[in-house]
C-alpha cells in the first residue's frame, strides 16, 4: 500500500489542511456512493490534490465558497454540484468531485458501484433515470436559491488560487 510523505495537519498544496481534505473526502465519498471512504481512498484523494493544483484554473472567491458549502454534508454537496454543473462546470468543485470518482472507480470495494451497469430490467432503469433527473432538478432549484445570490454578490472576484 502506498504511503504519504505529508505530515498530518500541515496545509496541503491546495491551501487546505490535511484534516480539511480528509473531511472533504469523507463527504464527497458519501455523496457519490453513500459510504465512508477507507484509508486508501483518503490517502489517494489528499495526494491527488496535486493533480488538481497542477492543472485547475485559478480559484475565484465563489469557487472557494462553493467548495466550503459542498463540504458541509452530502446533500449540500449535491446542491453545490448541481449548481456548479450549470453555472461553473469547470470550477474547482467539479475538479475535486471528478478526481474523487476517478479514484473510487479504480478502488477495490468501490469499483462495482461504477462499472456494474444495470440489473437487466428496462422499466427499473427508466425509473432510476427519472428519479435521478428529478433529484437534479430539485438540487439545482435549491442551488439557485441558496448559491445564486452569493454568486451574484461579487463571488466572481479572483481569490486565492488552489496552489499557486
Amino acid at each position, binding site marked *: 500500500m502506498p504511503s504519504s510523505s505529508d505530515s498530518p495537519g500541515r496545509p496541503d498544496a491546495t491551501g487546505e489542511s490535511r484534516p480539511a481534505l480528509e473531511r472533504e473526502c469523507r463527504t464527497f465519498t458519501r455523496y457519490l456512493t453513500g459510504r465512508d471512504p477507507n484509508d486508501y481512498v483518503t490517502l489517494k484523494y489528499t495526494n491527488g490534490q496535486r493533480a488538481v493544483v497542477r*492543472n485547475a484554473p485559478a480559484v475565484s472567491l465563489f469557487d472557494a465558497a462553493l467548495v466550503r458549502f459542498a463540504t458541509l454534508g452530502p446533500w449540500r454537496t449535491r446542491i453545490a454540484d448541481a449548481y456548479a454543473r450549470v453555472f461553473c462546470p469547470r470550477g474547482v468543485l467539479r*475538479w475535486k468531485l471528478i478526481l474523487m470518482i476517478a479514484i473510487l*472507480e479504480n478502488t477495490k470495494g468501490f469499483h462495482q458501484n461504477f462499472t*456494474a451497469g444495470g440489473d437487466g430490467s428496462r422499466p427499473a432503469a427508466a425509473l432510476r433515470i427519472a428519479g435521478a433527473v428529478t*433529484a437534479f432538478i430539485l438540487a439545482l432549484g435549491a442551488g439557485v436559491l441558496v448559491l445564486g445570490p452569493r454568486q451574484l454578490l461579487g463571488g466572481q472576484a479572483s481569490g486565492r488560487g488552489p496552489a499557486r
Partner: protein
Amino acid sequence: MSTILIVGSGASGVHLAQTLLERGRAVLMLDVGLERPAPALPKADFNGLKTRLDDPVAYFLGPSGEAVVFPTEGARYYGFPPSKDYVFASPPAFRAAASGFEPVISFAAGGLAEAWTGGVYPLNDGELVDFPFGFSTLAPHYATVVRRIGITATRDDLERYSPWFEDYQEPLETDPHSARLLERYARARPGLNKDLGFYLGRSRVAVLSRDLEDRNECNYLGRCLWGCPREALYAPSSTLKQLRRHPGFRYLPGLYVTHFTYDGDTVTGIAATAVADGTRHQFSADAYALAAGTLCSSKILLESIFQRTGRVLELSGLMDNRQMMIPFLNLGMLGQVVETHSYQFHQIALGITRGRSEEYVHGQISTLKAAAVHPVVQNLPFDLRSSLAIFRATHGALGVANVWLHDRRDARNVVTIRPRPNGEGTDLVIRYAADDDADRVAKTMRTVKRALWRLGCVVPPGMAKVLPHGASIHYAGTVPMSREHREFTCTPDCRSHDFSNLYFADGVSFPFLPAKNLTFTLMANAIRIGDALPN
C-alpha cells in the same frame, strides 16, 4: 550481402525489415525505441486488476493522477492510461510546434500502433485512384500482412468496401450490445442501404481468435485499452521481438536520428544522437529507408538538406483524416448488465458511400464496457450523483461511433523546420491551414445520426464532437508517389526522386488519404517496397 538501414520500428519499419530479411538482406534498424513496460498481473482480468493490485489507482491513473480526465475545454470521453505513456513520450532532443494541428508522435519501439485499436481495412481501386497502382498490386502484400499479424473478420456487407482475404481468422464473440446493433441492422438494412448509403458489418481487427506463433488468442480479459498481456491485439513490437532473433537483423535502440548526409544524389550515412548521453553517431549502409512516421521522416529529410545547404524548406500536402466522435444511447439496451469479459475496442464498422468511391466515409463503433467512467459522467448535463445513477442505468446501452473522412493533399498544409538559435539542430513545425470541411462534416454527422436512429439509438444533444486536425493520428502525403520526376516526390516504388538510395516506407508517400485507417496499407506497402528494392 547488402545492408539496408531502416529508421523507425513502427508498423512500416518492421514489415519492411521482415520482408528484406526473408529476401536474404541484412537490416540495421535505428530507433529511439522506448520500451513497453511489462504488463501487471498478466492473468488478471480488468476487474481483477482493481481488486488484486496493491495500488490500482496508481496503475489506472498514474502515480500523480496524470491520467485523470478533468473538465477542461475540449475534454474527451476517454483518457490514455499511464501504461501507454511510453508510446507518446519524446526524447529531449525532439521539439515540435504546430498551428491548426495537434500532432501525436511516437518514439516507442513499435511506434504509434502500440496504442492503436487494430482496425485493418484494405483500400480498393476507387480509393487507390491517385496512387500509381491499383488494388491488384497491393493484394498479395495485404495477404502477407493477414498471415503475419492475424486478422479476424467475417463475410458481410462491408465486403463491398473491404476486399476479402482467405486467411482471415474467424471473428471474436460479439458483446451483447454489438450483437443487438447487428440484429437491428439486419432488419433495417434495405432502407439504410438505399436511403443513406449506410452499411454495417463486423470490424476487421488485428486481434487473434487463434494462437499465432508467440502470441495467444484473445481470452476476453477486457484489458485491451491498458495493453493486452497476451499480445492477442497485434502491435509492431511483437514483430520487432521476432526480428531481433534473426541473425541478419541488428537493432540499435536509444538513438534519435536527426538527419542523413549525402553526396550528390546519394545518401552516404545517417546521423543520430544517443538519447542517454547526447553523443553523436554516424551509420552507413547500402540503402536507406525512412520509416519514422510521416512527421518525423519529413523532418529528417528537411534537416538533412538544411545541414548540407543551410536552406529551410517546406514540404506541403500534409494530410490527416478529420475525425468525429459520436456517442449514442441504444434504447433497447437500457438497464442491461455490462459484460467486461469481452473484446473492448470496436466490434462493428460502418461504411457510407453517397458519391465517388474515394469519398467513402469510414467508421468504427465501440460499445462501452471497461472504459473509464469519470470522463463520461462529467459530460452528462446533471450533478455527478445523478449522472452516476443515469450512467449505471445506461452503461450497457452506451456506445460511440468514431467516423473518419478522407483527406486530399493541400499546399496550405505544411511541414517545415525551425533552426534553433544555438545551432543545435532544428524543431519540427507544422502549419495546417486548410479547414474547409465544415459541409462534409455536417452532412456526415447528419447521416450517422439518422442511421443510428434507425438502429434504435439516439445521440444525446451536444455530445457529438468534431476532433481537431491531427487527432486521428493518420498522417500522410508530404513526399507523394509520382510517376513524374519532381522534387520531393518518390517513385511508385517509394524511392526518392532526389536521392537514389533513399526509400520512404511510411505514410509520407501516400498521394491521397482515404477515410479507412491506414495502418494495414502502410504494412502492405512496406512489404511491396521490400519486394521491389533492387539488390
